[in-house]
């Protein structure tokens, strides 16, 4: 289980990116984080990944506080972040250096086929499109079979078709080894498609605004009325989270109106 205990992060320049976030994520759960720009979603993911240290509070993964990157945690960043000097296959196999070349090759080939890039093993990252690069990054994170998978808008650079097919791949993989998944997304439809629970965050300072349990059973039909209803509920909450954020701005507008 993954849990955040009054987690806060204040950056060196005084920006309060997260303030007292408390949340539990069950083993094998897919949690989606949605929220307006700058509400600390990436910050939260970086803290879980062990890339940054919280200013206060802590993150426990199976009872252990996370202080640095862990072997059983996979990360997919907002950008592909491939190593340009490694071939596609070498990029995917980057985290498998402890295996024999033979074992590694098998896993890498398999992972590439799963993201729809079979046969591209020997190309350079620069020869791939942006979406293909992101798919290589996804394969690189999945090939190590992490217990906890962190994804920061992994599909936002992809077209709708590729995205839908990767949703399918991700769910298939998740079905096999049931990792815990924490994913950031801007796309409410994506959140409802994939997640068991959807957390709406609010900016300045970043905090949890609301959380929804997804009532839909898998596989989910995007065209069903229930899907639409769930989507609408979250959109409404998102809307409120952004309005609540700036009550003083509204007031400023009113005074401005009086002045005119």
């Amino acid at each position, binding site marked *: 289980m993954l849990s955040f205990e009054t987690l806060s992060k204040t950056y060196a320049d005084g920006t309060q990116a997260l303030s007292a976030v408390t949340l539990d994520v069950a083993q094998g759960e897919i949690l989606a984080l949605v929220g307006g720009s700058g509400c600390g979603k990436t910050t939260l993911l970086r803290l879980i990944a062990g890339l940054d240290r919280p200013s206060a509070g802590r993150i426990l993964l199976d009872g252990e506080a996370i202080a*640095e990157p862990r072997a059983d945690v996979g990360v997919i960043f907002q950008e592909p972040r491939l*190593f340009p000097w490694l071939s596609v296959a070498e990029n995917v196999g980057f985290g498998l250096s402890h295996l024999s070349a033979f074992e590694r090759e098998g896993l890498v080939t398999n992972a590439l086929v799963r993201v729809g890039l079979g046969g591209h093993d020997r190309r350079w990252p620069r020869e791939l499109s942006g979406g293909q690069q992101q798919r290589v990054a996804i394969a690189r994170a999945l090939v190590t079979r992490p217990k906890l998978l962190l994804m920061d808008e992994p599909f936002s650079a992809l077209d709708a078709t590729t995205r839908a097919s990767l949703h399918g791949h991700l769910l298939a993989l998740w079905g096999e080894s049931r990792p815990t998944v924490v994913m950031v997304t801007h796309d409410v439809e994506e959140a409802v498609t994939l997640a068991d629970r959807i957390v709406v965050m609010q900016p300045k300072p970043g905090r949890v605004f609301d959380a929804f349990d997804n009532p839909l059973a898998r596989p989910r039909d995007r065209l069903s009325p229930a899907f639409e209803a769930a989507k609408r509920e979250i959109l409404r909450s998102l809307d409120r989270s952004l309005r609540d954020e700036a009550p003083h701005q509204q007031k400023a507008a009113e005074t401005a109106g009086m002045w005119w």
Partner: protein
Amino acid sequence: MSALGIETAADEQGGPARPRPRRAGVALAGFALPVVLAVLWEIAVRSGFANGRLMPPPSVVGATLWSLAASGELFTHAAATLWRVAAGFALGAAAGTLLGAVTGALPVARGLIDPTLQALRAIPSIAWVPLFILWLGIFEASKVALIAVGVFFPVYLGVAAAIQGIDRKIVEVGRVFRLGRLAMARRVLLPAILPAWITALRSGLGLGFMFVVAAEIMGASEGLGYLLVDGQQLGRPDTIIAAIISFAVLGKLADGLLVALTRPVLAWQDTARDKL
């Protein structure tokens, strides 16, 4: 799906081959101007329009080169020059890489060492010559030291800048995969600075050839620079031009060798590759 993938991959590989004839054509076009000028000068001198004493025609320069080569003199001089450049380059590049790495990686070292080196860099390197001669004598050591100084600075600056410019985002990927210090250096940092390091080595090598001329002009009994001075003192412009041409050829060959040796490790780069 995979068949499609293979097709596109093959397409990519076949891609760069196509423009090659055109590139060769461009390279040949570059020869047109000097060849035409040389031929015109040859005609002008032969037909008596110009006298060619101060600027000998290509045929005379060619004959001089040939006789220098035939007597083995050219080889002796070129070998002496190359040895000096090689020794100076090795020393300067090693020192530049080492200090560049240290100051690039450690802010403390940067604060301590970099200002001094920047100040030293402001000194025109030829100004060191009298001091080097006093310290190291008039023979090889002082020449090699001067060349090493010339090579040192571009390498030092290039390596330090490359290390500071490493993309933090890609280092983070290394951290996510829990690379230790050594593995991080070998698998991420080193490959990341490799292109800039090689560029720095190339400009260092170029400066090495510049400084070997200076060192040899100021006093040597052999070397292509000596050939320059010798030609001047004997009033033989053909010898001077022969030496200049030899310098150009050697410099180009050395640079080409460096590029060829490093080509395999830079195969992943596209833009820089085409500029070389």
